[in-house]
């Protein structure tokens, strides 16, 4: 499987930005982060000792509605815990994350946003990194669908997702901890456990079997996502500091 393609800082005005293309769903997402910014007129919402995280998801070809508000809440929950809002200069300020779906299929009204959620999460993370917002850790996320026969599909297309029995989005921190678990549909604990193992393998490249054996599954799922995210940032840093590296 081909990994996602991403680039950092394509925009000029925003403090940090990222463009992200997910090869399986074909969606192209542009994210921007402005931080730290003043948020006047929202004094009651601001926390005196912490940064306020705002997430805005803008669909490509439709007005924003309930589905976007719902997914904004999930992203705010994940990202809000990673941002070190108590750092100098961030208290009482806002971290404004804007994610626009600028290419590929749109989520139609009333459909599940879970297929797009990992792409949105990755874009938000890369934009935050591009804006140099202090973070406690990075993460990687994936979406898996389980069909009636119990077969797990990684990053299903819209049709696959609609036919699936259950959909699961899992995010793992850079240390391997489970950060997010969003599921939809009917499933049992055994199924979820298999999904978690597969997701962990996709994100980190290793899966631990029941007997404690660590199996390398890189061949089946390609490069682990964690590595892809890391490499994108590494490439950018390498380019940004090329003047320094060349001089040394």
């Amino acid at each position, binding site marked *: 499987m081909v990994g996602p393609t991403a680039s950092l800082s394509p*925009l*000029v*005005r*925003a*403090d940090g*930005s990222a463009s992200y293309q997910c090869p399986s769903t074909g969606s192209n997402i*542009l994210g*921007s982060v*402005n931080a730290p*910014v*003043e948020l*006047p*007129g929202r004094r009651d919402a601001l926390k005196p000792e912490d940064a306020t995280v*705002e997430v*805005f998801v*803008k669909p*490509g*070809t*439709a*007005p924003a509605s309930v589905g976007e508000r719902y997914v904004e809440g999930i992203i705010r929950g994940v990202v809000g815990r990673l941002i070190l809002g108590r750092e100098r200069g961030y208290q009482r300020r806002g971290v*404004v994350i*804007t994610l*626009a779906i*600028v*290419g*590929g299929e*749109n989520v139609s009204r009333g459909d599940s946003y879970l297929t797009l959620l990992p792409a949105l999460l990755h874009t938000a993370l890369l934009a935050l990194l591009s804006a140099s917002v202090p973070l406690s850790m990075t993460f990687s996320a994936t979406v898996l669908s389980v069909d009636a026969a119990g077969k797990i599909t990684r990053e299903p297309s819209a049709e696959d997702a609609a036919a699936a029995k259950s959909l699961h989005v899992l995010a793992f921190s850079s240390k391997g901890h489970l950060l997010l678990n969003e599921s939809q549909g009917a499933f049992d604990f055994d199924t979820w456990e298999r999904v978690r193992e597969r997701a962990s393998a996709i994100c980190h490249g290793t899966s631990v079997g029941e007997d404690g054996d660590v199996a390398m599954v890189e061949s089946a799922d390609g490069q682990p996502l964690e590595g892809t995210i890391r490499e994108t940032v590494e490439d950018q840093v390498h380019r940004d500091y090329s003047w320094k590296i060349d001089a040394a």
Partner: protein
Amino acid sequence: MNKEAPLSISERDFILNALREDVRLDGRAADQLRPLNVTFGEEYGHVKVQLGRTSLIVRISAEVTKPHDDRPFDGLFTIAMELTAMGSPAWDNGRQGDLETYVTNVLDRVVRHSNALDTESLCIVKGVSCWSIRADVHITDYDGNLIDAACIGIMAGLQHFRRQDAVVKDGQVIVYGLDERVPVALNITHKPLSITFHTFDEGKKVILDATRKEEQASEADVVIGLNNAGDVCFMSKFSGSGVDAMVFVDKTSVALEKVKEINAIIDKALQADLSKRAKTGMLEESRAENDRQPELEV
């Protein structure tokens, strides 16, 4: 907030004094556009416009809906533009500012009210179903002259977009997928574009395609919307100080020249994209001049 940080007094004076000596910060002549680049994405109606450092993405989409009761023969066409914090840190997400209302209004008048898109051709069944065309404008970078950039994007998008074919059979509407039948281009009656001028020194200095800083230093703006044939379909002097009537007369001919120039750039980009698609798609096979297999009746 919804307001850019104001220019400092010295910065404003610098821009003004330079303009009095016929010099612009980026070295352009008064009637010169910034470099314009129009590119198309994978799907139909996906346009990326780069005008200097202002950039935006326009996406055109179509869906079948019910027409308005008072206009049963007309399809729907909406232009949706929402300024988000992506374009400029000064814009608030989910709050409509003055700029958004103003730009949306001008775009509506130039593109929609001038009937650039023939809405009657969008009718499928009278009073029952019609196509609803939606143009979404995503501002990715804002550095002045939002109106002209958005107008270029929307017009290029409408010309690039292909909607699915719909057929009425025995009172039933059948919509064929993009790979089932050759998608249909929209019916464009004319190609209007807006050209924005900004005035300084009580209308004595007039410049075209101002950057964000020049916009902030200016006294007033004049928007002229016209098509290739020189038909003026929109003219506005919205706010600010007065402008001499001769400015409108003089600048309309400048605007016409620019509209022709921009439309030529759009046409060139469209042709290049079309020939690229011809290599990969079914364009040659689906030409109207080719022999048709008579449709088999069951």
